[in-house]
């Protein structure tokens, strides 16, 4: 079995220099004066270098109307870092698939192929309408299915492979017959589509595609078009059957989680409890969660309300304050390494992690947890 792959969440603009978890909560990000609106190349470069040194493979760039565009950030950051990969969150429905592929392909050529995609069908109906998208939840998935099918059709063309040649129409010089993309769907139509810019990477002809979401539609989309299904962490027992199903279909499973690692479990739990903020923040965060029509958010909130501690190391109690993706693995380095191996046993291959403060927790992870995981994987 190959080694577990660890990715991290890219902090939002300004977060790298923030020290308290409260400062970085999502509620503040959505405020107009939030520093999250501006690219933070300096802070991100510091973070990216630390990620590379910590053994982190990729960072996920989140997409929303409150933040800079992810594709351009990946371009700027990819040029500034030598090894880190960038998982770009993007929503179908904002751009036609052909120009999207052209952007991603150009980006791949500029940053040595260090690019993957996290395709999100959409988050809240209100936010989507601001982008000109009036589809309802289920239709958004149907459209995302078509979107990725068209993208993959473009990636499947071999325009640049020096094979079969025909004579050019002007009779001057040999030219290969272009394979073109044709697609006639409900949401997208393409006729004679061709892009000369290829996806450039040392080992791939198309980017890895992470499809996130908990709804049946999201799972179906991950299976039909994705290379990995990205979902929130749950206990290994709960996840085992569904992970097995997904793996059987040749699709990987990647879990989103947060980590709080301290020398002892008690210290780690104390660090988590210190993050519980005041009541106002809870109200605002709940407001955001309740307005959303995302299955992922609803399930996470339910987990927090019903369970709190999901097992000895998995805690959902931060969800009402820090958002659905803050289900947290809490413990000592040994405990956390063991937990990751438990997930590996049931077939999970990748993780996208976040922590508080953003930089420090990643450094602890790289120093304390990752070497233990690698050692256990080796034995």
């Amino acid at each position, binding site marked *: 079995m190959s080694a577990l792959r660890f990715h991290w969440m890219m902090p939002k603009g300004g977060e790298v220099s923030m020290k308290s978890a409260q400062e970085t909560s999502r509620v503040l990000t959505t405020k*107009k004066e*939030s520093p999250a*609106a*501006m*690219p933070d*190349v300096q802070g991100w470069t510091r973070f990216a270098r630390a990620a590379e040194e910590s053994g982190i493979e990729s960072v996920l760039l989140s997409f929303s*109307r*409150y*933040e*800079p*565009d992810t*594709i*351009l*950030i990946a*371009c*700027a950051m990819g*040029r*500034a870092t030598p090894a880190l990969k960038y998982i770009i969150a993007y929503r179908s429905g*904002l*751009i*036609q*698939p*052909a*120009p999207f592929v*052209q*952007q991603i*392909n*150009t*980006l791949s*050529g*500029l940053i040595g192929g260090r690019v993957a995609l996290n395709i999100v069908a959409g988050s809240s109906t*209100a936010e989507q*309408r*601001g*982008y*000109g*998208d*009036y589809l309802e939840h289920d239709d958004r998935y149907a459209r995302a299915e078509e979107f990725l099918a*068209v993208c993959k059709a473009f990636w499947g063309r071999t325009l*640049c492979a*020096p094979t079969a040649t025909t004579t*050019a129409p*002007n009779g*001057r*010089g040999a*030219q*290969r017959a*272009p394979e*073109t993309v044709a697609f006639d769907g409900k949401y997208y*139509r*393409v*006729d*004679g*589509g*061709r*892009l*000369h*810019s*290829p996806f*450039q990477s040392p080992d791939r002809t198309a980017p890895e595609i992470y499809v996130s979401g908990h709804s049946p539609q999201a799972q179906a989309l991950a299976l039909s078009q994705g290379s990995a299904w990205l979902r929130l962490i749950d206990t290994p027992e709960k996840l085992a059957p569904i992970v097995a199903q997904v793996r059987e279909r040749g699709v990987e499973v990647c879990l989103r989680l947060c980590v709080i690692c301290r020398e002892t479990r008690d210290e780690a739990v104390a660090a988590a409890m210190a993050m519980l903020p005041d009541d106002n923040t809870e109200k605002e965060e709940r407001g955001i969660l309740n307005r959303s029509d995302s299955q992922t958010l609803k399930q996470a909130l339910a987990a927090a309300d019903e369970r709190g501690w999901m097992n000895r190391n998995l805690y959902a109690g931060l969800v009402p304050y820090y958002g659905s993706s803050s289900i947290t693995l809490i413990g000592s380095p040994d405990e956390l390494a063991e937990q990751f191996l438990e997930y590996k046993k049931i077939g999970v291959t990748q993780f996208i992690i976040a922590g508080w403060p953003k930089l420090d927790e990643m450094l602890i992870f790289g120093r304390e947890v990752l070497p233990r995981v690698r050692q256990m994987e080796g034995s």
Partner: protein
Amino acid sequence: MIRFHWMLPKAFEVRRGQTPREAARYRIESIQLDSPSPKPDMDGWLEFARVAEDAGIESVLISFSRYEPEPFMVACAMGQETSRLKYIVAYRSGLMGPTSFVQQINTLSALIDGRVAINIVAGSSAAEQRGYGDFLPHDERYARAEEFLSAANAFWREGHDVDFDGRYYKLEKGTLHTPFVAPDSGARRAPLPVGAHGVRPEIYVSGHSEQSMRLAATQGTCWLRAADTPESLRPSVARMRGLGIDVCLRACVICRPTREEALRVAQSLLPDDKRETTIALKNDSRMYAESGAKDEWLNRTLWTGLVPHYGPVWTTLLGTPEELAGAFLAYKEIGVDQFILSGWPEVDEVSNFGREVIPRVRDAERRQVA
């Protein structure tokens, strides 16, 4: 002062020791499948950018087509590694919604100190547009571009709660937190009220049709078209300037110490096969339809000999440094104050232009002021 911009060379076009003919052929052949030009070429582009900055070039235009790398990405990478040069990114409406377009442009502006402008093309060939998923006919593409820019301008004006109810775009409470970041010197011609946002990029609208002029006037800051003689351009330039809109001309430059040398270079650029043409590729563009039926010499310095073969942006300004400086000043007199130029090989021609032509233009401009 006249503002001089240049075309970004195609990828891997920047090579030392090429003849003008070899360089021109590379550009023409860049749409063929075996051309290396679809892949980004940072080394070549950066070499060009350094020469262009030293030459006194303000911006480079990065063109958009299915044959090339994507211009936003190229501008982002280039902008990170240059400090003065601005980037005019070409884009076609119909490929992306206005909200995500503005989010990308604003992010780009924040990453490269606002050194970004936009060239909106309503769409050139119907076949190429269908390959991008756009099936609208030519005239409707202008109506859509009008809505597209109108919604984009609303974001730059307001930044939040943008409602738009058009035929092609509908937005409800559109909000983007990342603002457009203006360059130190820029946004001076953007006549939008300044609010929390209120700053927008310069918007070049290109085309020869009446619709393109109207679109430039209602939503843009500058009308961009291929060069013609000052006499024929005078009325339309006066009309645009009267509406507060700049006019920018696209032209190729062949500048040599003597006219005879310049003419020899020009002749060497003609294809061996006189029937060869790439124009058919853009068959529903008015700019292309108008080209071809004209005399080769429009005046002593303006030559259209390449246009029937390669298209209207190959309209050529040709002559000695003095002659060319005079030609630019004649355009300035009728109200044209920006140019986007190109030449072969690009690096040699831009460096020559910066050494020989721009100083002569600046001298004359200073004398005019004094």
